[in-house]
């Protein structure tokens, strides 16, 4: 058979450089999809902001912080709302995966030679970036409640935000992978997210809670994210005792992200169909 032999795609196993291009392309895709969707853009910011105003103003008069009487509820809740933005933005960027299972994109990605780890990273780093940017926009409002973090504090906030966003994008990835409908995804995510948030010391101080709740808070990785955010926002002027040192907080957040990432890569390497 006579035919012009077309030059084929780069041969050999994927290189480090090609891994970088794969991650960059998927990262950019996540950002573009989010930015082009105006309703998601507004919803992701307006929802936590409204939550903060409603809860904050609602409890402002009755809230009393044990050991720190001067802290109002708006102020107490602020680091928790940063965490809430991180959790929800991160997780809901992965809802795309559910739709991509119906369209051909998930299969197109999985039939490409790119290493599975780069597919997972490109996807989750996109969502991570979006969540961290949204959280940063909210952190800029900190002076409204009298909080002015210094450079070291901002660095701690950024590190904690990156790890937390990466962990929850990856959690969303793992759950979206098994979901056939976006409705199911919403249901399962709300089952996870709200309890994790409420039991993180974000909505009420651990000091005033029952012993069982205090234990749950200690076991919840989100508590360490909220603790790091709170320490970053207050610096040395923290009104109550911290849950752990900043380094320990970051270790928990980073470790949580690493475990979930390993799970996601393991999952993506298994055949899509059985």
């Amino acid at each position, binding site marked *: 058979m006579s035919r012009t032999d077309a030059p084929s795609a780069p041969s050999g196993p994927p290189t480090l450089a090609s891994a970088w291009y794969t991650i960059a392309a998927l990262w950019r895709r996540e950002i573009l999809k989010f930015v082009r969707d105006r309703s998601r853009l507004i919803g992701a910011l307006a929802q936590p902001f409204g939550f903060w105003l409603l809860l904050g103003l609602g409890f402002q008069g009755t809230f009393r912080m044990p050991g720190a009487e001067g802290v109002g509820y708006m102020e107490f809740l602020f680091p928790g709302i940063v965490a809430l933005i991180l959790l929800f933005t991160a997780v809901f960027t992965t809802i795309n995966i559910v739709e991509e299972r119906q369209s051909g994109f998930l299969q197109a990605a999985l*039939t490409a030679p790119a290493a599975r780890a780069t597919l997972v990273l490109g996807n989750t780093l996109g969502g991570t970036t979006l969540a961290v940017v949204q959280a940063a926009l909210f952190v800029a409002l900190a002076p409204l409640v009298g909080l002015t973090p210094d450079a070291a504090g901002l660095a701690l906030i950024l590190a904690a935000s990156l790890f937390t966003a990466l962990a929850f994008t990856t959690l969303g990835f793992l759950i979206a992978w098994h979901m056939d409908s976006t409705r199911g995804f919403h249901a399962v995510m709300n089952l996870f997210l709200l309890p994790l948030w409420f039991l993180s010391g974000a909505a009420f101080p651990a000091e005033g809670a029952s012993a069982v709740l205090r234990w749950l808070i200690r076991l919840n990785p989100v508590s360490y994210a909220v603790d790091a955010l709170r320490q970053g926002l207050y610096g040395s002027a923290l009104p109550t005792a911290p849950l752990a040192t900043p380094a320990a907080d970051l270790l928990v957040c980073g470790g949580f992200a690493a475990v979930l990432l390993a799970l996601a890569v393991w999952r993506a390497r298994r055949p899509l169909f059985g």
Partner: protein
Amino acid sequence: MHDPALIPAVAVAGVTHRYGDRVALRDLSLRVEAGAQVALLGPNGSGKTTLFRILSTLMAPTEGTAHVVGADPTADAAAVRRRLGIVFQQPALDAALTVQENLRVQGGLYGLHGRPLAERLDALLAAFDLADRQRDRVGTLSGGLQRRVDLARGLLHRPALLLLDEPTTGLDPVARRAFWDALAHQRRREGTTVLVATHLLDEAAPCDAVAILDRGRLVAHGAPDALTAALGSETLWLETADAPALRARIEARFGVEARIVGQALQLSHADAPALLPALYDAFGETIESATVRKPTLDDVFLVHAGHQLSAHAQALQPSLEA
């Protein structure tokens, strides 16, 4: 080393696949030569998508082996993935992204970037008449144009083998035509081997070979002309209330073999038109209708599968005679 042109694009040997208790493919063996365009023809549920999942490294077969351009999709997935392009039933495109952005994402999945990617993009967009739409969001394009973008996506990394899974579903005839024209041009330029899964006879007919699948089994395989010629030059179809009875009477009286296909009787007689008046004289009261025509791929399917391809309700019934 072997000449690359001699390595078959697809070589499937004894593949059986089960989803739980359901058997999707039964002992399938199939060879697709390099450079050919082959149709996998069969109704929904005949096993086409299952075979594609196996070839495209998304699933390992329960039994048997498969090779894509010499590589095993289970053992050496990376090698298969580099050589394989796939256009799925649903376009793998983001409606919110432009044509160019979508294709650049695809390039990234294959590690393509910079000048080589830009040149490849320009060439494909020009070849598929998409150059003036490249900055438009995919969601604003017609279904036909979206399909052509998806075809460009599948061909971006110059695959040796392109799998097309019902690629023209939902397109009007004009868009369908444009899709196949674009593919034909592409094949002339790059010699890409194409395996297309379809349930449309007019998409299978122009292919070099047709593999007919029915309930997971390969029931016929060959060039379309050879498959139709095997049924005789003219075929006579008789409809009757009691096909077995009529067949027995025809064989007894005229010594002509008839085949029961679905509800009808098929006679592949060299001189079928001449036989028709005699048949009417003899059994006119039991013959409801008679048709003489050249066999089509539809007839090939009907004869080998025992039911009609186009009639889905019928396709789901067990055939009267296997």
